């Protein structure tokens, strides 16, 4: 926004013509968007906090049905954990490529990240199907309601991230690395790291403590 730029110039009492402003202008606006997104992530922290609280409070309420420890297959979970960790890393590499100005590298690593994300989702769906097969659905007991909602909400976030990354890859290939696309990549990778963090806690609290 124009005023953002004028803030700067006015504070310093200097006035150059407005040719050079556009860049600053956008820059400031993109920075604002990143900050706004950060705040959104914090609201998401709260959102997951509530889901975790619910899960913990209801964790013993299995209504004489199966418990998590009985049904959870850790192998798949461990694999998906490492997949997600790796994808967090590759999304960082994508960022590095972007800062080097390497559009191809950026798109490549984003694609790798998205693929890892997709395999994570695939494993998650498989796990859910396995659980349903074993007789644990969202309606089985409070424990499973909380389980599916918490894990599923995380999975939903990852899926949204996938769509978003795909859209971004298309935009990047069309427009290249600009202030705007740069900000978008920054935001998406922030989101991705955030989902990784959430997963760590899902992994610890739902799975590790579940099988303990």
């Amino acid at each position: 926004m124009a005023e953002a730029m004028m803030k700067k110039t006015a504070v310093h009492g200097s006035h150059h013509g407005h040719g050079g402003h556009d860049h600053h202008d956008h820059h400031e606006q993109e920075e604002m968007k990143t900050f706004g997104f950060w705040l959104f992530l914090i609201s998401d922290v709260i959102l997951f906090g509530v889901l975790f609280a619910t899960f913990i409070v209801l964790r013993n309420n299995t209504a004489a049905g199966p418990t998590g420890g009985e049904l959870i297959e850790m192998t798949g979970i461990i694999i998906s954990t490492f997949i997600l960790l790796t994808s967090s890393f590759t999304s960082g590499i994508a960022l590095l490529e972007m800062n080097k100005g390497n559009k191809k590298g950026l798109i490549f690593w984003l694609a790798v990240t998205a693929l890892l994300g997709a395999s994570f989702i695939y494993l998650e769906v498989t796990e859910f199907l396995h659980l349903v097969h074993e007789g644990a659905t969202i309606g089985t007991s409070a424990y499973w309601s909380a389980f599916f909602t918490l894990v599923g909400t995380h999975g939903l976030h990852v899926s949204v991230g996938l769509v978003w990354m795909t859209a971004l890859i298309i935009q990047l290939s069309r427009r290249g690395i600009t202030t705007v696309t740069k900000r978008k990549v920054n935001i998406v990778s922030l989101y991705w790291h955030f989902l990784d963090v959430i997963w760590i806690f899902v992994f610890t609290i739902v799975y590790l403590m579940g099988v303990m």
Partner: protein
Amino acid sequence: MWDKIKAFSSEFFVTGDPLILGAQVSIALTLVAIVFTLTYFKKWRWLWTEWLTTVDHKRIGIMYIISSLLMLFRGGVDALLMRVQLAAPGMEFLNAEHYNQIFTTHGVIMILFMAMPLMFGLFNIMVPLQIGARDVAFPFLNSFSFWMFFFGAMLFNLSFIIGGSPDAGWLAYPPLSGLSGSPGVGQDFYIWGIQISGIGSLATGINFIVTILKMRAPGMKLMQMPMFTWSVLSSSVTILFAFPILTVTLFLLFIDRYLGAHFFTLDGGGNPMMYINLIWMWGHPEVYIVILPAFGIFSEIVATFSKKKLFGYKSMVFALMSISFFSFFTWAHHFFTMGSGADVNAFFAITTMLIAIPTGVKVFNWLFTMYRGRLSFPTPMLWTVAFIPCFVVGGMTGVMLSVAPADFQFHNSYFLIAHFHQVLIGGVVFGYFAGLYYWWPKLFGFKLHEGLGKWAFWFWNIGFYVCFMPQYALGLMGMTRRFNEYNFDMGWQPLNVVSTVGAFLMGIAFIFQVWQIAHSIKFLKKETTGDNWDGRTLEWSIPSPAPMYNFARLPVVTHQDDWWEKKQRKLRGEPDAPEVIAAEQAPLEPIHMPRKSGNAFIMSIFWFIAGFGFVWDWTWMVIPGLIGVAVCMLVRSFTYNTDYYIPVEEIERTEAAARGAH
């Protein structure tokens, strides 16, 4: 076939009650009339380009305010209906089911669809002007927020004529609100109406935090911001942390109902108490979300009409921030009687009381702003002065409620009802009215008729005390809330009659306000100075109503109450600081503005469609709704051409017209 249709429509439409039938007919007639008028005067295009697609914060603000005043009317009519029933419980003016629906919708509408949007309206209109910005940080998101609120509110209100209203209380405790307690669709309307508008509220919170932190005029330090802006910041921060809790809680209730999950059900290991715990984690901060901006408004007004600087600026800021922080640590005071033991109760009782300290500091600072001032009493100031005693009494009764063992006697009684109406009406409603009267000229470029405003003021005030003071007494007489009937032996009737009279006095007050607005529009007295109250903050430095870009040149701020200081310097013949002068004399430059967009409006309609589908369990409707939402988002993501420049000539023309007027 016919039978099927008949069976369906008897479930779909609310039938069988003359009151509701009347409402249905009148709503239908109003809709027809609106469509006819728009078509006849060829206003559809105007509506679309000027309003539905606007991203201008001032227009969005106006739309918020109009909708919220309509909702005040709806909620107020609900209140009057309840009061009639309670004055004469034997008459069965409303049967039990209706009564339950009405207090539920009254509570929801008043807090979520009246207080919140009125507050957002004031945020929108004033914050950018007060901090010297051309719009909010994310204008598109802002229009999205509005339309989400609007369609959420529409969805909720629809339940009145379609499907049946929710009737489990404004916070809808399960299992009553679960499938076992409320099998009808009313509760789903509740969930989706609030959910959709809640997403909008969260977005607004984020938007204003960024706006305030990142878009202040050059030179304006945080500690130089107007107090209203501070209060918006504290309220927005509270929204940011509180609304996700609401979203999740309602979502869990929804999957209980929709997918047969067992979070809050009686069977399957569900625990309804968890809902109560969660909903108040949002619910308590929510009441501070709505009161904090009112505090900000009072601070502005009290300084302006005392012709004196706000006393204790720093402690005011500190108090605001600590209230929003502590508001997250008190939620359990709403269920002291849940039997969570003395440790929990003692802890939450004490955290609750702590809030009285910063609140008290604010009260004293307002008093000492007036002290040694020169007070004048136009309507905004009248509301402010009336607020202080009213809110202090309401706050004190709040403190009495916070004493856990005493609350065992107050809980769910009319004592509680009286407490929260006193802080909600005496604090929130009075505050927003004060702000509305204060900023009206800035908003529309004309003043409101003072005489009628004073009538409204007195009716509201006297009506308030007549209505709610007896309710404290009723509480001590053991009358519980949400009773549609009571036994005459209890001796509750006389006070209930008094209370009802008070409610009608407030109804008359509201009529005065409508009249006042109509009258002022008819005998339009243009406000041409741009600074009709001799104001102190930046919004008064520009013409009324503000041009679409707000500030032709962005001001450079050097002081708290910058505009006032500037006027004082002029009086004293002192020059402004060089950077201020430089900014003022700089040549005009093209102004960068956000482009209009219909996307937010359309996306919200899709949300509405999805919500309506969820309510009726119509997957065929849910899916296109959600797909529509996703498509709108993607379209937006692929839109790069989101802003434009206003050329210098146009700015010059607009400025000349505005300045030339005086």
